[in-house]
């Protein structure tokens, strides 16, 4: 029993560390709290072509369309306007990232973002990435165990016409496995994790921007 108890404490610690990303849990935060996010139009951009990032950008788009006063471009509209989408935006080297004002894309990629915005003509680009998608196995010493999924979520809000990054997202999320019961699959679990993450990002973004859809 003691073994199991200590193992659970260890597991809880690991999950907390993963979730907190060494103490960071920022679904959305402005670089400068005095920055005003004006209502207008926004496009959620998938920062790479991975399945997880593509799904995250879809879910975030859905969330913002449902809950915000922004005009939110659909992913299909973005694809149609950009032609080739999603594209892999090169990520900045970890040592070059400012911890307080993290810009996740490499310096050379700003021109690509500007090129995208010129075609999309939105006031904001919300670029998102997923990282370190993991399947975590924990086995209890005296039998049994559990499987969880974990994903790191990153984002940057880029403002136009000034073409500057004004906000970021940096957090982790996890979900216990429920798959294989009631016809559910592993993909469903990870989709749920990503949807939950998108919801958290959207809610924080909208509360900061004060851009929630007015209640009817």
């Amino acid at each position: 029993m003691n073994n199991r108890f200590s193992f659970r404490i260890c597991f809880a610690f690991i999950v907390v560390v993963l979730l907190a990303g060494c103490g960071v849990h920022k679904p959305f935060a402005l670089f400068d709290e005095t920055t005003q996010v004006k209502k207008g139009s926004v496009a959620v951009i998938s920062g790479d072509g991975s399945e997880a990032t593509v799904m995250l950008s879809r879910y975030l788009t859905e969330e913002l369309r449902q809950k915000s006063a922004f005009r939110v471009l659909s992913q299909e509209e973005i694809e149609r306007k950009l032609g080739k989408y999603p594209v892999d935006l090169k990520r900045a080297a970890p040592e070059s990232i400012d911890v307080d004002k993290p810009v996740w894309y490499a310096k050379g990629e700003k021109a690509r973002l500007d090129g995208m915005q010129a075609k999309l003509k939105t006031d904001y680009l919300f670029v998102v990435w997923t990282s370190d998608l993991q399947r975590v196995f924990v086995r209890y010493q005296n039998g049994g165990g559990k499987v969880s999924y974990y994903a790191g979520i990153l984002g940057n809000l880029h403002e136009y016409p000034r073409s500057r990054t004004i906000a970021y997202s940096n957090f982790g999320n996890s979900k216990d496995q429920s798959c294989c019961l009631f016809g559910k699959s592993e993909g469903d679990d990870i989709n749920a994790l990503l949807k939950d993450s998108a919801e958290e990002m959207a809610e924080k973004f909208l509360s900061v921007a004060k851009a929630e859809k007015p209640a009817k």
Partner: protein
Amino acid sequence: MIPKERAMERCIRKIAILVLLISLTACFSPFTPIDQDFRPKGKTLAVVAALDSDENIAVAAAMTESLRKNSRYQVMPQRQVAQTLGYPIRIQGPFKSAYFEIETDYKKTDVKRIRSIQQKLGVDYVYAIWTPSSTVYNEKIHSLHAVGQMFERHRGIRFQAYSRKNRHAETVSVQEREGTSLHLARGAGPYRIK
């Protein structure tokens, strides 16, 4: 070692080999003909990297080279495929999700896009290959999960599918009827997909 232990060791070894064989045969399907009456009539073939990742393009290139060396098909070089289609491209593939493993769903393939690609390339067969998921270890790809479908231009579209590493042998065939609708026969099928 006493004879009893030796016998036990042999038994365990046999069981291990049996389990390995079962798992390999059950789950690894390099190429599965769907329709047993299928008679290939075409001569030209192109392998298409259906996703834009470097590994997908590399797999398509390797497959092209292998088919050029080992088959009687006239296989279009990858450079020509890339130029004609404007690589990199992304085509909706036959899977519901592909995070750690590929959950196949053959109704999801963008058949319309495949058909237009086939017209552009002007080949009898398009072998589209997707590698949406990989396991990375020490920053190197440890295993690659792939799924492919081969489309035939004549007599409608048929495809054979395979998945590797995921080890689900799927058999699917598609026939185009009356030029407007596609029926997907799967198991007892058919399901209307368009």
